[in-house]
């Protein structure tokens, strides 16, 4: 467990306290270090259920690291150490009762570059389902149709479900990846700059999708694009140097930031 004096100091920085109405993910004094180098310092924030929460901040501020920590993707890297707690619906994700594959089913993740698997569109969406349990084909087909429809892709691919997923365009691929994640019915969807590799029209489709999905699940979005955060998110957290600087409703953070650092970043006066 990391409880360095540095992180204690960081916590004294004025962070806007904010407690949402219904908490889905609760991050408490979370620290994380890559090979001893601190990447996240004493983060505390609550992510509200069925809302879109955006993490913004300059490159290297730790927003992607935080997102990956929620999925426990850092388990793959032995040099990563962490301290503090992340709770999903009140349950610590690092606790021994938490099965990591079950956690990852409940917390889906979409990456910056679309990463469909080298198989058919159908098999991509079925991938997560096949990992869990045997389903009758009809049931599976239904779930796949539902997932693709939820990801606003069904109409474009319903005639070529058994063609290679790599033949889709970048935007379609990204929506396929979202559908693949939705198919296992997660509670939380983590999106790591999901539109940064896409063209403007695909970006708009993804944003629309994000807005539509929040009725079903909790979304956390990491983005470099301030307008995007403003357009799609309900709450915004601003991170800098691995610390949480300001967190609040998106309107408030963008129009009336409490801290000068936040305002500087949002208005582009900071490099």
């Amino acid at each position, binding site marked *: 467990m990391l409880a360095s004096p540095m992180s204690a100091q960081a916590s004294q920085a004025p962070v806007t306290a904010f407690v949402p109405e219904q908490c889905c993910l609760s991050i408490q004094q979370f620290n994380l270090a890559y090979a001893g180098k601190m990447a996240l310092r004493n983060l505390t924030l609550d992510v509200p259920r069925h809302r879109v929460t955006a993490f913004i901040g300059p490159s290297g501020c730790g927003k992607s690291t935080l997102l990956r920590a929620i999925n426990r993707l850092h388990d793959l890297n032995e040099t990563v150490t962490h301290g503090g707690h992340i709770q999903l619906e009140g349950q610590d994700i690092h606790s021994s009762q938490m099965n990591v594959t079950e956690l*990852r089913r409940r917390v889906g993740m979409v990456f910056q570059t679309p990463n469909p*698997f080298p198989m058919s569109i159908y098999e991509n969406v079925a991938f997560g389902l096949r990992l869990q349990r045997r389903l009758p084909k009809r049931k599976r087909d239904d779930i796949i149709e539902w997932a693709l429809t939820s990801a606003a892709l069904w109409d474009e691919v319903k005639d070529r479900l058994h063609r290679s997923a790599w033949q889709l365009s970048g935007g379609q691929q990204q929506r396929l*990846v979202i559908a693949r994640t939705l198919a296992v019915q997660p509670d939380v969807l983590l999106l790591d700059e999901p539109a940064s590799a896409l063209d403007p029209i695909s970006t708009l489709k993804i944003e629309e999708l994000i807005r539509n999905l929040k009725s079903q699940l909790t979304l956390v979005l990491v983005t470099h694009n301030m307008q995007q955060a403003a357009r799609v998110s309900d709450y915004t957290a601003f991170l800098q140097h691995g610390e949480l600087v300001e967190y609040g409703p998106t309107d408030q953070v963008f129009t009336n930031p409490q801290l000068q650092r936040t305002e500087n970043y949002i208005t582009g006066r900071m490099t």
Partner: protein
Amino acid sequence: MKRRSPHTIREATWLRDGLWPWLCAACVALSLLMLAALLTLLVTRGLSHFWPATLEEVTLGSGDIIIGQSVREAPLPQNAGLERLYFTGNREITGANWRWVSVDDITQQSTPNDLIRLERTPWGDFIGRLIAVESEGQQLTGQEAWDHVKNALTMPPSQRANSELLLATADGQTLRQPVSGISHFQAPNAMSWGQKTYVWGQNVWRFLSQGPRAANTGGGVWPAIFGTVLMVILMSVMVTPFGVLAAIYLNEIAHQNRLTRLVRIGVRNLAGVPSIVYGVFGLGVFVYGIGGSIDTWFFSDELPSPTFGTGGLLWASLTLALLTLPVVIVATEEGLARIPDAQREGAVALGATRLEMLTRVVLPMATPAMLTGVILAVARAAGEVAPLMLVGVAKLAPQVPLDGEFPYLHLERKFMHLGYHLFDTAFHGEDVQAAIPLVYATALLLVLIVLALNLTAIFLRHHLRRQRGNEC
């Protein structure tokens, strides 16, 4: 893989960069030229051997008459003109199959249609004339004799009528030849092009489908083809899983530190070890070590004659598997390293365990690279001869290691190999002149087999790639 689109750059550089692009192009051209020359040589020399060549009847200044096939000409020393080599056959009469004749010495030369060429056992080829056929006390001549022989040859030797051919050599000697000893009968001068092509096809087929005769200077190479292909297949079956698992461990499971780097360097360097060294290792460890132990434990009643304690198909395949292991490991590792981490993370983020991620996403994506490794391994293994000489290849093993007798695949048997057959034909035969065309034909065949094995693997890889889109 993205392809570069060099059009914009190219126009400028061709003019500006001076000579070096031409130098590079020349190197490519030269390589292609040498490759083309190699293949042309093998194809012309190898395939023309099977063509039913015209027989010439030649009268020399001394009055001697010889009948034979003109093979090639060579200059005589001190500008004394040319001398020509004739294949005359009739080894039991003249003592040799070949005769050198000075071209200036030839007074008369013709190609009569009644000249025939027989292949018989024993004694090999006969070249001369057919006078008559003696069958059941009757003497057949002319067309009847020809028809009789043709009919007889359609049957297997044991069922043929008990008839004899009366033959005449160039210098008038006659001899009798039982029809049961004839394997081939032709009168090439009387043949049309169509007939010659047919006979050529027959000869090629006989070369491919029959066993060797006359100390490997005649007959076919079927056991060698079979041995080569079977050994390469066994080798691939052994080396692929082994190499792939090793590569997975190195790239996906082991911690990346100094030790893994050292292992990697070691593996790469193993690829450079001379193949004969692997042969020595195979002989010492597989044949004498493991094979000897197997013999003492399981086949002790047959000792001192060894069963597994001598070179054989199994040990040869194992030795070559060891030889090609680095190739498979390196190729697979490179394939694994090319797979973006996003794919691995994508699978893991969906709740896949590491094993599921490996088997369902990473390995399918790395399959083309693995196949590349196997292609390279096959290409290398099919051409290796040196280590095989130590661990199981035989000069003559007409019994192929796969037959209908339990246990069907006889791993302990010695086998024939095209590469070794080539070497043996070229250097250990008694009849050097007869060996030359066979050497070319065998070399061509070896190239074609390696090509066919490679094409199979390449086709498979292409098919896999097409199946999942056009990348990777």
